[in-house]
Structures are given as C-alpha cells and as structure tokens.
C-alpha cells in the first residue's frame, strides 16, 4: 500500500513539475509596453503588443541549438533578411533589465506597396535565443521608435 501511495505521490509531483513546463518551460516575459501599446495578456508562449495604428511588438524565444553566440546568430539573421531584400538601416547595442546585452537591428523593407520598418533584437543565453521583433509602416514606426527602444531596456524573463 505504501509503495502504491509513494508511486502515486511521485506521479503527482512529476506532473506538477511537467505541466508548468509545457507553457514553453514556464517562461514569463517582462517588458513595459511603450506608451500607446496594448498588451495581449493571455499569451503564454510569447509576448505581444500592438498600437492603435498597427505597429506591432512580439517577443519569443527559441532554442540555442546548435549553440551559438550573439554575433553568430546576429549574422545568421542578417544574412537571411538581406537575402529577402531587407536593407539594414540602423544597429545598436541594448541592455535588458537583467543585464543581458542584445543587438537591435532595424531594416527597411517594401511590403504591400508601402515602406515598412522591421526591427529585431537578439539576446542570447546558453540555452535560448530571445527574439524581440517590432515593425510597422515607416511613418507609424518612426513615431513609436523611441518608446520601443526604451522598452527593450525593460525586457526580461522570469
């Protein structure tokens, strides 16, 4: 009987450990949305925010596999985007809330007959790559740009 109870307790404990892990290993994104953005509060796997004029921010993480550093992944992302016709227009280093150093790169791209801006910020840890994307039409993005960069300084995970 004791063996059965112990086994059941083990299963219950194991389930408690695994279930939160299903929510992308229990990651919770912390980022103060820039002024004028509304955050999707029900998202578990990613962080999403949108402004009234359609500028979007999305944060998510992927596995750092094969393991690479920030420079390597930054180059891979840039090569991919350049192949698709994106033009890099700005780049700067940003530091997240917890001290992570990330690269923020902005691109210009002609999409749906309009000039757009797309920014991708990459933070790399031993296990994960954290991606924060932001974009919108050039004019609307320009109005939100400062707020977005400021918010990147508040980015963190729990």
């Amino acid at each position, binding site marked *: 009987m004791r063996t059965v109870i112990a086994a059941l307790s083990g299963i219950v404990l194991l389930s408690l450990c695994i279930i939160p892990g299903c929510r992308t290993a229990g990651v919770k994104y912390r980022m103060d949305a820039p002024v004028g953005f509304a955050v999707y509060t029900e998202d578990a796997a990613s962080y999403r925010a949108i402004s009234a004029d359609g500028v979007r921010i999305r944060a998510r993480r992927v596995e750092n596999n094969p393991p690479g550093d920030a420079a390597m992944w930054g180059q*891979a992302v840039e090569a991919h985007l350049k192949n*698709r016709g994106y033009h890099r227009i700005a780049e700067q280093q940003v530091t997240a809330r917890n001290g992570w150093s990330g690269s923020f790169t902005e691109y210009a791209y002609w*999409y*749906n007959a309009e000039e757009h801006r*797309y920014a991708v910020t990459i933070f790399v840890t031993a296990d994960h790559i954290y991606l924060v994307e932001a974009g919108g039409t050039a004019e609307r993005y320009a109005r939100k740009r400062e707020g977005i960069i400021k918010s990147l300084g508040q980015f963190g995970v729990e």
Partner: protein
Amino acid sequence: MKRTIAIIALCIFCGFPALAADGTFTQEYFYGMFAAEREKAVARLRSFAAENNGYVKFYSSTKVVLRMPAERVQRIREVILDTGYIGDERIQRTDVGESLLDLRTRLKTKESLLASLYKIFEDAQVQQTLEVEKELGKVVMEIENIKGRIAYLEDRISLAEVTVSINIQPGSKKGAVSGRTRWEWIKSLGIERLMSSGGWR
C-alpha cells in the same frame, strides 16, 4: 415639334459615346501580391507591359511600377494571378477634368494676349519695344508652362500607373531563399509574418 425631338435624340445618341470616351480620370492601381518565385512574377509583369504598349517605370526584385494604357490596365489582375495571388488591392481614380478645362481656358486667353502683344510689337515705337519684348517673353513662358501641365495631365489620363509590391508566398518552398536557411525559426522572422494576422501568433 417632332423634328426638334428627333434632333435632340440624335444629339444625345451621338454625344453620349463621345462623352464616355473623353476620359478625364487618372488611374492608379496598387497591388500587394504573394508569389512563390519573385523573379517569375517580375518577368511576367514586365512582359505584360511590353505586350500592351505600356512601359516599365521601375522594377526591382520586390517592386514593379508600370505605366499602362488606360483601356488595357484592367487585365493586370489576371497577370498577377498567373504567378501568385493578391494580398492587397487599392484603386484610386482622380477626376482632373476641371483642372484641364481651367488650363485650356487659360491657354486660350494667354494665346490671344500673345497675338495682341505681337500686334503692338509691330506698331511699337523704339522706346516701347523693350517693354513689349519683356512682356512677350513672360507670356510665352506662361504659355509653355500651361502646355506642359496640360501634357502631363493628358499623359496621366492616357496611361494608368500600376504599382505591384511582390512578397514571398508564406511557406513557399520554391523560393531560392528558403533553401539557404538552415534554421526553421529564422524563416519566421520578417515584417510579412509580423504584420499578417496569422503569422504573428
């Protein structure tokens, strides 16, 4: 009375098609298309312009701007659908009839002024010649300016402008880029995914 009615009817009958043909609208078309192979889409659009007495104003791997005869531009949808599908479509028609009428009236007035000035010039005393010459130069310049604006508007009416923005079809395996990408998540980066309702979830 019957004769009058018949004349009016004849005028309407003859005048209606003439009015319809005398277009005073400029037309601008904007399309956002998705294509599996951008190069093919660009080539198809360029050949469409050449085959239909239009011309390519600008092209790159992501954007094509065509000037097409107004009566043939309607076929652009079919051409886009040959190599991809339409994600966004906007058509803008602007009536420039009033501006044209105004410019043509001003042209007539200036031309009659010019004729009068020439007449004065012929009979002018030596002292007046310089002043009339100055005025003549000014009027000629104004006439050329008006003619230029009329020609521009007539060109905008006769040739519609079509701007096609070509995006890679999501999930396309034929694109040269897809083959070069080693990591799946990298494919999910980009403004197309971020801005599309399904892509950014």
